[in-house]
């Protein structure tokens, strides 16, 4: 099997599963319990805070564990909007965010928040001039993803952060679900106030994630309850999930540290091979995230290609899996100004450090064959 759909989700690592099972079996106590089981669970929780904070270069009181990227994004956006509405009701985001950001923002318009969606250039990148123009006195939140999930475009996070430096009540949220473990980001230096991470995108488990929230910032909770996690995110902590998340973060970050070029090599090889196929248009810009490559086959129905590859045990996706239920058109590619026949036929391959160059070659051969066969039928 060749799995090139790592931006949809990744295969959980064996050691991550082992930790999950071991914690579930041996440390099933409620971290709020008084007895030894509770104390042990709390110990694990404390270590999880410490280790994740260390990896992100922040302090342990700035971490909130969530049920994944969607919750982290919602908690960041609604949490800021509802808590600081007295400072303004204007939010800036981009046209190419993940639906959990776009729809959270959209929902806030019902409470009279105003949203500005920044357009992107032909590479899928936000222009700083547009951003500067959109900033207003009453802007309370700026939410920009680090790496786009469909084409891999990397947004100018540091530059945006610098522009917000002196604005105490304009908070800066970064959706780093696609970036963590692949592209480094200095939270402090980039002036980031909130940052989302999802476990299952980095060989962890579904249902795990975290939100970094800068020390003094208060969020209006999505969940009220027993006051866990500093009363920001009530609900008995999913210790096994949390430990597995932190372990996955460690493994992936170490992999990135020891083999910083591995993903780029595979992506570049793929790019080279795809450029040899005349029917292919490559959508991703040269200089972008190392693990995502979007390309289109104008004239071909993307699902047909996807299933033809699947017959050969190769798994990729048409645009992003999360939004795949809508008709064919890619919102991101449309926002990038791609012609309809390109944005209607987009396919995405996304890599993990587990992929190999050999897999790329096999994919290349399979795709060539499929295009040839399909052309016969369609021609």
């Amino acid at each position, binding site marked *: 099997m060749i799995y090139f759909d790592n931006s949809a989700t990744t295969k959980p690592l064996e050691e991550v599963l082992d*930790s999950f099972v*071991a*914690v579930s079996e041996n440390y099933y106590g409620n*971290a*709020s319990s*008084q007895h*030894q089981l*509770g*104390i*042990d669970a*709390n*110990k*694990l929780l*404390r*270590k*999880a805070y410490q*280790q994740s904070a260390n990896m992100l270069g922040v302090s342990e*009181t700035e971490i909130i564990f969530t049920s994944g990227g969607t919750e982290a994004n919602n908690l960041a956006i609604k949490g800021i909007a509802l808590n600081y509405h007295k400072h303004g009701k204007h939010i800036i985001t981009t046209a190419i965010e993940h639906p959990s950001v776009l729809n959270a923002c959209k929902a806030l318009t019902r409470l009279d928040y105003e949203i500005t969606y920044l357009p992107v250039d032909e590479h899928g990148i936000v222009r700083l001039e547009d951003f500067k123009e959109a900033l207003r006195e009453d802007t309370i939140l700026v939410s920009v993803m680090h790496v786009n999930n469909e084409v891999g475009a990397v947004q100018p996070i540091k530059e945006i952060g610098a522009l917000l430096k002196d604005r105490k009540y304009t908070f800066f949220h970064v959706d780093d679900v696609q970036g963590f473990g692949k592209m480094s980001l200095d939270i402090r230096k980039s002036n980031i106030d909130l940052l989302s991470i999802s476990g299952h995108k980095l060989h962890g488990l579904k249902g795990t994630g975290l939100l970094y929230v800068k020390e003094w910032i208060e969020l209006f909770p999505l969940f009220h309850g027993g*006051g866990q996690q*500093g009363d920001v995110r009530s609900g008995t902590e999913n210790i096994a999930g949390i*430990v597995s998340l*932190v*372990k996955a973060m*460690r493994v992936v970050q170490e992999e990135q540290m020891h083999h910083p070029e591995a993903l780029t090599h595979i992506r570049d090889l793929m790019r080279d091979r795809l450029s040899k196929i005349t029917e292919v248009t490559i959508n991703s810009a040269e200089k972008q995230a190392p693990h995502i490559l979007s390309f289109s086959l104008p004239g071909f129905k993307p699902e047909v290609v996807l299933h033809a590859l699947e017959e050969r045990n190769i798994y990729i996706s048409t645009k992003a899996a999360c939004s795949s239920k809508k008709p064919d058109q890619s919102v991101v590619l449309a926002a990038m100004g791609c012609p309809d026949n390109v944005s209607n036929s987009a396919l995405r391959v996304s890599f993990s450090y587990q992929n190999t160059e050999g897999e790329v070659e096999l994919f290349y051969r399979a795709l060539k064959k499929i295009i040839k066969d399909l052309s016969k039928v369609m021609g």
Partner: protein
Amino acid sequence: MYYDHILIRYGELSLKGKNRKVFYNKLHENIRYQLVNFPEIKIKATRDRMTILLNGVNPNLLMPILTRVFGIQSMSLAIKVEKDENLIKEAALFALKDAENVKTFKVTTKRADKTFPIDSQAFNQIVGGHLLRETEGITVDVHHPDLEVHIDIRTDATYITSKRIEGSKGLPVGTSGKTLLLLSGGFDSPVAGYLAMRRGVKLEMVHFYSPPYTSEAAKEKVLDLTKELVSYGGDIKVHIVPFTAMQQKIHREIPYGYSMTVMRRMMLKISEEIAKKQNILSLTTGESLGQVASQTMESMHAINAVTNYPVMRPLITMDKSEIMKIAEDIGTYSISIRPFDDCCTVFVPNAPKTKPKKDKVEYFESLLDLNNEWAELMQNITVLTISNDQSHQEEIDQLF
């Protein structure tokens, strides 16, 4: 050639005459306890010093642990060789090269074994000359050397040491009896506990918690602080007292302004009761004069009146900044700073009396019946023993 020993010089304990043996046995036991994860090492105590035979353990792993053990004046890494001139020269050269940022040195020989044929002065020159020949850019300075290479020629062998690492001084924990520390989770009480331990006192802790007004995290914080102090003084028992019901009653029935004083008196009374049961002869608090309303002279007078146990207050004359400095040095600061309320801060009235009158407090208290709460509370004290159980820690570490 490499360092194969750590040489430990005793602190004050070498002054203690007949009791000396008690002291160094305790020190031996405490060092053994802290180094439990290094079964390879051998500890040998003699009347003037202690040596740890490393048996291949990296001494850099042990130093941070040993610098927390009270009763150690100073330590040096040492190489043990036969009483052979060439071996001694080789070891001295290693010691010199191993030290960093050394421009000047001197050699000091102590010849306890007078059968060694060369006298100290002459031997200093022989070894010094050897070191000068074998290195570049390093010179001798007998008055203010960057590094002093010691050659200690004893009857059994010769020890070569160079850099001196300061120990924690003080007395070995356990040689000055036991105290019950009132531990809140703030900055002060752990520092008070640390200072008590430095004088050889073994600690037990009492912590008052008031669920749901104080969170579990607050209790966890107290246990983490205790764990930090375990690395200075060995196992520590923590008595956790459920204080909610009593606190609520005091809050309801004692006039505004006096509730804090009464609450403190009750805490001291409960602590005394626990101490009695544990055969502990004193209480210790982190109070510092004038820091908050309960720590004025009048307050302490009114509060202290409930017990005739000695109440040690190691921080009483210290400034907050001095206390914080120690907290940072000993590693409790980063735990204490975690933002969770303890039971003392939750129920504080807006304007507690800074000058409570003892008579008035006693009068108010006489109208208050806390017998049920007292009995209930005494029955529900939980006791945990915190130790440096590293095997468990390793198991946890592997999950990450």
